[in-house]
């Protein structure tokens, strides 16, 4: 492993690691999961991310940060990329990047927006759009006998839901609650969020399309007194709205962790 310091300069401690695409999975019309084999991957915590660097033939480079979507399996890591039509990097990764192609990764990085399996208390995950990716890494890392987890996942419509089948399966797991919020079209039925014609949920209630509201984040076992750690990830406006709802409900600001992203630099 090349970890030697550059004399008189920056160390190569966080050197870029070569990686290769092993597999790709289409998750929705605009999201693709990339499974990468990364040389000497040291493992990571759920919520951490990687910087991905692409280098063109002429030496031009572009770097973007992506959340890790799942626990590592040896040198195998997963990221889920949302294609942004006018983006510089995401259309390449989603449409052009082929199995066997090379890329460079730096990471894992980030210690703020992480869930540590030994930390106490329930976990409330609030996702807007592809903000579900690091939260999915946390759900996937939850042990079978673990603290209660609830995912509240806001998407425009049922077709935009990433990890749909796996979330439906997880929703039937003891201690895991998955709730869908659709902002444009569709009404969740039951805990698995299937798109029901009558718009009724498992308890007979209707959750019509609309933006996230305080009632979506309430419920027995999920109040401020239950002291959940709240992880909110999504576009900036969504994160601000969700964090405001949680703070207004009385959740301690120290237990609200946020990660924002948005339509620039894609």
């Amino acid at each position, binding site marked *: 492993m090349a970890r030697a310091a550059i004399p008189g300069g920056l160390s190569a401690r966080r050197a870029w690691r070569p990686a290769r695409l092993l597999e790709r999975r289409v998750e929705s019309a605009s999201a693709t999961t990339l499974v990468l084999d990364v040389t000497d991957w040291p493992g990571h915590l759920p919520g951490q991310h990687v910087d991905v660097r692409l280098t063109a033939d002429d030496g031009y480079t572009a770097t973007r940060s992506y959340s890790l979507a799942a626990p590592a399996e040896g040198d195998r890591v997963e990221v889920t990329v949302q294609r942004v039509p006018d983006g510089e990097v*995401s259309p390449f990764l989603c449409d052009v990047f082929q199995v066997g192609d090379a890329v460079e990764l730096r*990471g894992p990085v*980030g210690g703020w927006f992480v869930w540590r399996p030994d930390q106490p208390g329930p976990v409330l995950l609030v996702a807007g759009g592809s903000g579900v990716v690091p939260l999915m890494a946390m759900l996937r890392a939850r042990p079978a006998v673990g603290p209660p987890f609830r995912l509240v996942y806001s998407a425009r419509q049922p077709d*935009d839901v990433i990890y749909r089948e796996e979330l439906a399966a997880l929703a039937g797991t003891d201690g895991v609650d998955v709730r869908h919020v659709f902002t444009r079209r569709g009404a969740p039925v039951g805990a698995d969020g299937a798109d029901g014609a009558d718009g009724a949920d498992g308890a007979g209630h209707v959750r019509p399309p609309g933006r996230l509201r305080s009632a979506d984040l309430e419920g027995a076992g999920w109040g401020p007194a239950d002291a959940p750690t709240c992880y909110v990830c999504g576009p900036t*406006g969504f994160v601000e709205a969700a964090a405001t709802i949680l703070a207004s409900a009385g959740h301690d600001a120290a237990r609200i962790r946020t990660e924002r992203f948005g*339509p620039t*630099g894609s």
Partner: protein
Amino acid sequence: MQGQDSAENSGEEPVGGAGLDGNVLAGPLSEVFAVDITTAVGRCRGCGTSSAIATLRVHGPQPGLVGRCPGCDDVLLRIVRTPDAVWLDLGGLISLRIPAAG
């Protein structure tokens, strides 16, 4: 709540993971610091607000990353990577409290 709608409308669905807050500084700063700086708490020279670096508003990535105070929007830090150097400006911070073991 208007913000959410505009965020969802403006760039269509947002970027998968491309950061807009201080979490995205973790990689670039890892080249310079021995520990993760995004969990450190910086104090703004302008308004005195203390914020975890992960919670800064960040603009970039070109020509560099600029981190602004969530309290007053002053520039707290800038980081620019050239082919042979990292330029780091922490001029907007009066202090940086870095969690240490023990």
